[in-house]
């Protein structure tokens, strides 16, 4: 059972709070793609796509697609004012040089150390890592948006990931439909809750131990 649209948008809205004016942001597919809808209209954010776009805008209207203007997933997008095109080497140069402020991506599992496992779906063929490793290792801040548990109801936030890792100790923040965690060298800190969920429910659905910050914010948008 996946998340309803509302929960997905709640998660995306919370992620949007991390973005400030002028940032360069790379968004993964799925819930991360909803984040731009929750940014203030006048905020200048440069969305980065691995294939060589800085300043990506929203999807074009049907019939207005340009086959030579697509995001890294191959779907038509637009370009905002101030945007530019570059080759794939420079695009990843931006990532490795630390010029991409935030990457917001989905994940299959995250460990309490911030290990990320998001590139091999269990039981499926090996699809290849694409640009996931560079983004996970080199974006200045890595935010994971995901369901708190998988479709079988099993926790996705774990003491150690059981799936092959994309990168170790790279995640900075986890946002699920239940809660928000900060990843620190000492482990996870729960900083926020999405009522009606409470702390006990998060504990029940999280495999690893975590601490809570002094004042847990209760988010109700």
């Amino acid at each position, binding site marked *: 059972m996946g998340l309803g649209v509302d929960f997905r948008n709640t998660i995306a809205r919370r992620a949007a709070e991390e973005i400030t004016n002028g940032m360069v942001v790379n968004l993964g597919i799925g819930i991360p793609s909803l984040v731009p809808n929750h940014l203030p209209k006048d905020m200048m954010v440069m969305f980065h*796509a*691995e*294939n*060589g*776009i800085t300043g990506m805008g929203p999807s074009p209207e049907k019939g207005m*697609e*340009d*086959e*030579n*203007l*697509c*995001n*890294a*997933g*191959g*779907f*038509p997008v637009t*370009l905002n004012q101030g945007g530019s*095109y*570059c*080759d*794939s*080497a420079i*695009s*990843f*140069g931006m*990532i*490795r040089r630390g010029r991409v402020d935030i990457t917001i991506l989905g994940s299959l599992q995250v460990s309490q150390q911030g290990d990320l496992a998001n590139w091999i779906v269990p039981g499926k*063929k*090996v*699809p*290849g*890592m*694409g*640009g996931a*490793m*560079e983004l996970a*290792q*080199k974006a200045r801040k890595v935010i994971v948006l995901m369901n708190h548990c998988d479709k079988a109801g099993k926790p996705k936030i774990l003491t150690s990931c059981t799936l*092959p*890792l*994309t*990168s*170790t100790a790279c995640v900075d923040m986890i946002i699920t439909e239940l809660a928000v965690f900060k990843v620190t060298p000492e482990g996870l800190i729960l900083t926020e809750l999405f009522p009606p969920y409470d702390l006990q429910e998060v504990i029940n659905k999280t495999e690893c131990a975590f601490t809570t910050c002094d004042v847990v914010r209760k988010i109700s948008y």
Partner: protein
Amino acid sequence: MENPFGKITALEDVLKLFFNGMTLMFGGFGGVGTPPTLIDAILEKGVEKLTLIGNDTGFPHIGIGKLVSQERAIKVIASHIGSNPIAGKLMHEGKLEVEFSPQGILAERIRAGGVGLPAILSDIGMDNELVSKNKPHFFLNGKDYLIETALTAEVSIVYAKKADPYGNLIYDKSARNTNPLVAMAGDITIAEVEEIVPLGSLNPDEIITPGVFVDHIIPSKGVNWKWAWE
């Protein structure tokens, strides 16, 4: 069009450059920016046992995916094959060898080949066996890195918006992607272009690939596949 450099070439003549067992590098990202006319011509010629180098394996009926789906390749060096399930199937059946390289490092390996450097150092995917296996390591300033070797090909094929008769190229929006890198990495580079314009009509500040790297120019018949989003 005047052809003072002899680079504007008939399709049947560039086809002579393709042969069984060759290494072929292609521009494009998810099929966007992959030269459609050349792909079809290579298919029709029946070239096989190809080693393909490029960002990904496209979709089954899009871009380089067409060659992969028809089992014309024995090896692919790419960053992912997820959008082409046939590639995954062939890999699991042992019919297709796949070497995965992280996307940005793959781009840099191609660029290194293109600018005549033998290798680069990288810390991407150090701790991932799929990336690091069989690769030499080097300690620099106390930190461990992988030596990622340069990639070149016997022939590179790219897709551009415009070429002049010298082969100076400009690209269209995100169809640029890996093309300028691939254009440098071919021992022979063929550019398929939407339009050939007279010498002197491209602004020299705006040329992305200098014609120095381009050996043959062929006019494109345009994209003839249906995109995944259509």
